[in-house]
């Protein structure tokens, strides 16, 4: 990093890989939201207010199957609950910040800019909370503009939606893989998959997803607690190999 580079450029350089990767996903999301009946203004609004790829894709696909509003909001709650974890893990770097700052920071935090900021805070001791907030705002800008352009494309062209919809599936597969840290997680995934099919077919409602998630995650939690207490050398607790070893630092940090 050059010494006399202005702050906005330093931060933009940090956020650039993330910003570029938002473009194809944001475009796909805009196309889907348009197909779900959102106008361009609403697409812009949701991109700013909800600012979460997974959540926006989910809203779009649930609207197209005419899911009731309460179900969508409940699903949203469980989907967004994971941010509790992200927030709590960043909190130690934001100690002593005033309430308006915490408010603004929480408002625009999502999976991806969290990852960028966590890495910066962990590796660069000069990284400041205000710079972290700027990272969030840059990524918000990339995301919102891509969504609006996607919405405009969606209104101009006819696009096969079942293909674009797979962008959501791919995004969730990616996030699941990134979160798989131990062999036990793979077991929890398998359990969650079986339970999902069972409860969806049984309940004929997306609530089946919520039930499957709760049972699978609690089972994982109790198995881990039991193993740590009684069989700490169990194979299930082995770490999953990371071919790029990018997350190695994050691990040792726990």
């Amino acid at each position, binding site marked *: 990093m050059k010494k006399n580079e202005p702050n906005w450029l330093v931060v933009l350089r940090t956020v650039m890989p993330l910003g570029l990767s938002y473009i194809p996903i944001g475009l796909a999301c805009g196309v889907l939201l348009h197909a779900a009946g959102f106008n361009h203004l609403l697409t812009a609004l949701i991109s700013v207010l909800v600012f979460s790829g997974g959540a926006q894709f989910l809203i779009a696909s649930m609207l197209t199957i005419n899911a009731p509003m309460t179900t969508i909001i409940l699903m949203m709650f469980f989907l967004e609950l994971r941010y509790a974890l992200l927030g709590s893990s960043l909190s130690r770097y934001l100690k002593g910040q005033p309430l308006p700052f915490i408010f603004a920071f929480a408002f625009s935090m999502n999976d991806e800019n969290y990852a960028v900021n966590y890495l910066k805070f962990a590796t660069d001791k000069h990284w400041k909370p205000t710079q972290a907030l700027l990272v969030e705002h840059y990524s918000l800008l990339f995301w919102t503009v891509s969504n609006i352009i996607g919405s405009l494309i969606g209104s101009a062209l006819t696009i096969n939606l079942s293909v674009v919809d797979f962008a959501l599936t791919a995004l969730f597969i990616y996030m699941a893989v990134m979160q798989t840290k131990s062999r036990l997680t793979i077991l929890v995934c398998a359990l969650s998959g079986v339970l999902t099919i069972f409860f969806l077919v049984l309940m004929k409602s997306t609530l089946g997803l919520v039930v499957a998630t709760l049972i*699978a995650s609690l089972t994982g939690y109790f198995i881990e607690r039991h193993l740590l207490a009684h069989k700490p050398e169990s194979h299930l607790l082995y770490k999953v190999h990371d071919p790029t070893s990018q997350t190695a630092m994050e691990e040792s940090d726990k």
Partner: protein
Amino acid sequence: MQSVSSMTSMDHFWLIIFCAIVAFLPRFLPLLFFTKRQIPEWFNEWMRFVPVSLFTALVVKSVFVDSKYNIMTSGNLGLIISAILVGFVAYRTRSMTLSVVIGLGAVMIFVLVLHI
């Protein structure tokens, strides 16, 4: 999937507001709380399994369950192969963009060209 929605733009507006609230609280409250005190251990440990369970559930739903909540027994081979491919790409590259772009490419080939 076609665009049939019975909701008006006003409904959509309120949906966005509620979703924004539901999205904001889990980001804000823990951050507010834990900049002042310690995170309870059990919560942290349980939360480690919530996202991964939910993501798997959503993937399994879109690949194996149709919109009438029946198990898909045919016509989803292309989706299954694409999903496995995406998992492999995500594992090897850890790149969100590559995972999504290769996934979309695979689905286009399998579903639109090969019709499996």
